[in-house]
């Protein structure tokens, strides 16, 4: 598909560095799916849907900075939703969110909650003000917090909050890759799903720019089972925009 014109209807400052952009268009999607957001004249970047009609963005580079310049009534082009999304499992699930990685997990929490699934969320950020979507996770179940600077909850990394991982029916994780690798090393890989971030170009499984070894993050992912990731360069290498291997 060509990009669909999406007009910004509301901008919410979630944290000092993270904003949610609501659009006049909803995208029927599974939690964990993403869209390609075209900031015209600048770039097109992959973003998880944090609501059916919104993306939640951290200002990190030129494209996200250009997005932060946009106001209500401005528009972007959107392709998608793309990718697989999280696979739903019954029982008691654990969500582990680091920073803006909470964006795809919040709609998952809401969907799981509506289906009567018990949810525990481990929510981490650098500091108290950067904790994202705490209220949404709280509405869905129990929330435990960790901050790098100790300004809220446990002083340390969110991965240190993982106690008895075996008691959960499924673990869902999104955050910085180093954090996700730590989670992968701590849990039973087949019981965990990870949402990956890679440099995505085509978004439709053709160009191969986002491959983690042979896996296309845009098409086979962005959500992968830990069992699959165990056999890959995940957590060790990623590819830059030239396709060069760089250490995570």
């Amino acid at each position, binding site marked *: 598909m060509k990009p669909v014109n999406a007009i910004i209807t509301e901008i919410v400052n979630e944290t000092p560095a993270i904003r949610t952009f609501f659009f006049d268009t909803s995208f029927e999607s599974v939690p964990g799916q993403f869209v390609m957001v*075209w900031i015209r004249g600048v770039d097109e970047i992959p973003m998880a849907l944090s609501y059916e009609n919104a993306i939640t963005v951290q200002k990190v580079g030129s494209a996200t900075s250009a997005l932060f310049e946009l106001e209500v009534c401005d528009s972007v*082009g959107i392709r998608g939703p793309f990718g697989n999304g999280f696979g739903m499992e019954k029982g008691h699930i654990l969500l582990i969110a680091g920073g803006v990685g909470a964006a795809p997990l919040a709609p998952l929490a809401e969907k799981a909650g509506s289906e009567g699934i018990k949810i525990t969320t481990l929510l981490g950020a650098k500091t108290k003000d950067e904790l994202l979507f705490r209220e949404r996770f709280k509405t869905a179940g129990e929330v435990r917090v960790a901050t790098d600077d100790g300004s809220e909850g446990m002083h340390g990394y969110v991965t240190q909050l993982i106690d008895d991982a075996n008691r959960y029916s499924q673990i869902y994780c999104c955050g910085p890759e180093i954090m996700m690798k730590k989670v992968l090393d701590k849990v039973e890989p087949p019981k965990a799903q990870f949402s990956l971030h890679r440099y995505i170009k085509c978004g439709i499984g*053709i160009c*191969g720019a986002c*491959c983690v070894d*042979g896996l296309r993050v845009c098409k086979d992912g962005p959500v992968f089972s830990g069992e699959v990731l165990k056999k890959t360069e995940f957590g060790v290498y990623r590819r830059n*925009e*030239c*396709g060069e291997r760089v250490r995570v």
Partner: protein
Amino acid sequence: MLSLTLTGLKLKNPLMLAAGIMGTTGGSLKRIAQAGAGAIVTKSIGLEPRSGHSNPSMVEVDCGYLNAMGLPNPSYKDFQGEIDTAREGGVPVIASIFGGCSLDFSGIAGALDADTFELNVSCPHAHGYGTEIGTDPALVEDITHAVKKAVKVPVWVKLTPNVTDIKGIGLAAQHGGADAVVAINTVRGMAIDIDSGYPVLGNRFGGLSGRAIKPVAVKCVYDLYEALDIPVIGVGGITDWRDAVEFIMAGAKAVQIGSAVGDNINIFSDISSCMEAFLAEKEWTLDDIYGMAHDT
């Protein structure tokens, strides 16, 4: 039943992965090999690392795809490992390479160990490369000749359809010593976002692939088959087994598949089993249908 020898390479089937598709990591190439391709072609590799054009670099349009990736690649100095990993897939690995002059091409080819080199003189949207070279018969002949002198493996030349007469460029490649030509690369194209007036691709224009270009490619293959003594490898819009058969009947010794891999990563095994069934039903061999359209 589908096996063949192509420029000295033994292929289990005539279905190859086209350049630029799933071709940056050794792991993705290996996956395609294991999914049934007869050979795999890498992403085009150049002298220096390139990040390519800004996004959007590929979008779906009516009946096909427009792309302007802009030759992103990690450079040949950082690519042998990927080829070696790709080789674990057990089929020939063809290195697609690009450059701005014959020295670039021969330098890169001389430094890489691959089963064949495919010279990209046909990318339609990278300034100083591709089509800007591949529309000049003298340059094509010179580059082909230089690479032939630099390597001991077969050399294929991938042609652009964005010329008045593709046969002239094909003949230039043949004069330069090419072992085969590959036709076609993408057809120059463009899309504009009517909500804003912006060209959709970051590079403003790019190349069209997919179903829309198949009749263009079939005609190019048909013409090249008549004009050249060396084999023609067909590529452009192959989406199912009927397309592959059509290309072979037009005169393609083998075919490459690109865009259609996105929606069906098992397309190589799907096409090869359907082609086998078709040939069996018709009581034809691969050789029987090769260039069949020319005998009618």
